């Protein structure tokens, strides 16, 4: 079993992450008056329905698309020389320094604590229809897994194959893949918690909740 104290100390030593906000598509960029050193906020609300700080807009085919901060943090750099220019998709626009939140720290630690079922190939993944129904109705944690059950549909180049679960029995504690997004080979798809470790995992959650101080 891993050492949670050590892990927390490691994260505390470098609690930052650099986030690069890029152009989602081509278009002409206009920055807002956000400056280097300014504090920005990320999406908030129960369903993250409130957008983060507006950083720039990008206009294409007469449509303006707002570009918001994806996480809270401090603005490190605004690439102002792109003001008014037509940029390619993926062009970096703003760099943010983001202080890890409780949930993010928890996610990092859980990735070490849970049994991870990883993607065998770079592909898009979907829950198998029966599992999908359950997930939609009562959440991923309602799905109990056992060796050999049909869990995923793996889709590559529009060809689909079913993928069976292998690993310890347990419930799905964390879901790491997004609908219609590619997952690289070796990246985790889900985190599974065996029933006998449930209390341990809950301890971990509690410790992070109490020990991690969220900074602005």
């Amino acid at each position: 079993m891993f050492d949670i104290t050590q892990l927390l100390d490691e994260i505390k030593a470098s609690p930052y992450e650099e986030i690069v906000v890029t152009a989602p598509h081509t278009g002409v960029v206009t920055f807002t008056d956000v400056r280097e050193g300014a504090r920005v906020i990320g999406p908030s609300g129960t369903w993250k329905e409130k957008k983060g700080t507006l950083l720039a807009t990008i206009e294409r085919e007469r449509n303006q698309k707002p570009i918001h901060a994806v996480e809270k943090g401090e603005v490190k750099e605004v690439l102002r020389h792109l003001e008014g220019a037509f940029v390619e998709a993926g062009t970096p626009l703003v760099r943010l320094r983001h202080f890890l939140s409780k949930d993010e720290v928890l996610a990092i630690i859980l990735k070490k604590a849970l049994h991870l079922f990883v993607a065998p190939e770079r592909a898009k993944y979907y829950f198998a229809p029966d599992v999908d129904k359950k997930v939609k109705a009562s959440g991923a944690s309602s799905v109990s897994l056992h060796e050999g059950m049909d869990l995923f549909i793996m889709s590559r180049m529009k060809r689909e194959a079913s993928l069976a679960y292998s690993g310890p029995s347990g419930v799905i504690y964390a879901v790491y893949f997004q609908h219609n997004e590619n997952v690289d080979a070796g990246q985790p798809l889900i985190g599974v918690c065996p029933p006998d470790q449930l209390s341990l995992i809950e301890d971990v959650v509690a410790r992070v909740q109490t020990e991690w101080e969220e900074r602005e």
Partner: protein
Amino acid sequence: MQTKDHKVLVANRGEIAIRIVQACRKLGLAFTCVYTAEDAASGHVRIARELGGDKSLCRVSSYHDANELMAVADDAGATAVHPGYGFFAEDYRFARRVSQRDRKLIFIGPSWRVIRELGDKINTKRLARSLGVPTVPGSDRPIYDEMEAEKVAQSLFEFQEQQGVRKPLVLVKASAGGGGMGIEEVYDIDLFRSVYRRIRNYALRQFKDEGVLIEQRIRDFNHLEVQVVSDRSGRNPVHFGTRNCSIQSTGLQKRIEIAPGFDPSSIEYGFDAAQVLRDITQHSLAMARKVGYDNVGTWEWIVTRDGRPFLMEVNTRIQVENGVSATIARVRGQKGVDLIAEQIRIGLGEPLGYGQEDITFEGVGIEYRLIAEDPDNRFTPWVGRVDGFGWPERPWLAMHTHVPSDDPYDIPTEFDPNLALAIIWGKDLAEARERGVEFLDTLVLEGANNAGEPLRSNVRFLRDNTGRILKF
């Protein structure tokens, strides 16, 4: 505006993007290419950097996003769009938008009305029937209702039983699919419902459209095509001969294409093959004239063992296999026909400049589609890195590929693992076959995946099938 003053936006990727760039260069036209993050190492990006002028390459978020293409076209000063095949090639809404927006562009393909008319399968069939052209039976439109789907399937089974078909079967396919994806065969009406549901769910996931087509599958047939070319007047369509595309994967994707469609001079058929080729060519041209067809297009036919042709569909675009027709075609006796260059030239408004009497054919062409896949395992795509790719240059060989031969290349998982098209010419079928085998035997194609397993390709499948080409 003169033809050479145009700038063409190449709205596609890979091998076809390269060929469009080469055709533009031949015609003295400027061009601009697009690419996505996954394709940064693709040959079309490289050729755009090497050969392109000002603003000849732009990274976009997706090839499927029309707004991206329009924005790049405007920024680069493009005046025309070449859609290649796939993506927007047969999307009449895209063609209409391109040609009707404030800053108008020329869509290098048939006009949007023609695409709409022939893209609609009911319309195509109605038009065909009105001209006395036989068509494949089946649902004339996508079906969204399970009961209706079952009814159509039931009637197709009954129809085949009446026709004396021993093992009737029905084909269920995703309406929005293509290229052989999302198709299943059903032999038993009791199993129909589960297959229908599976395909419907697949279609919804992959194409966001649950429409399903239900068709009769005629077993034991040859798949033929007629290449039609017509300028913007729409009045003088000509044909560039026929192709045979019967050698396919189990997923019904083409693997070997041959021009001409049959070879009665060296192979005996159970029917008058020359007459069948004449019939399908004449039927195709009659339809092209009727709709005022005004660019390149392909009429796809199935020919049964007793020599009866049925029209399957019309592809209102340039096809992958255009080069195999070009390799045997001569215009006023001249070699070097390039159907993509012709498509661009007439698409930009030039008259075709020659008639059917100026087009002749010489020899036999074979096109191999080199693909990283496992033919022994239902043609499953293989993903990994290609690190050895080469072939001896031959005067009778043309290779079209986006895979670099001097650098390793990671196959992107977003697209089919097509690696190259090899087009071989021979003075007759025997020589073309011999050269085809020689090419495949000298080809170097190596690589490995994450797990260290060697590259799988269809080279042996292509070699094994070379012996039976054009036989029926």
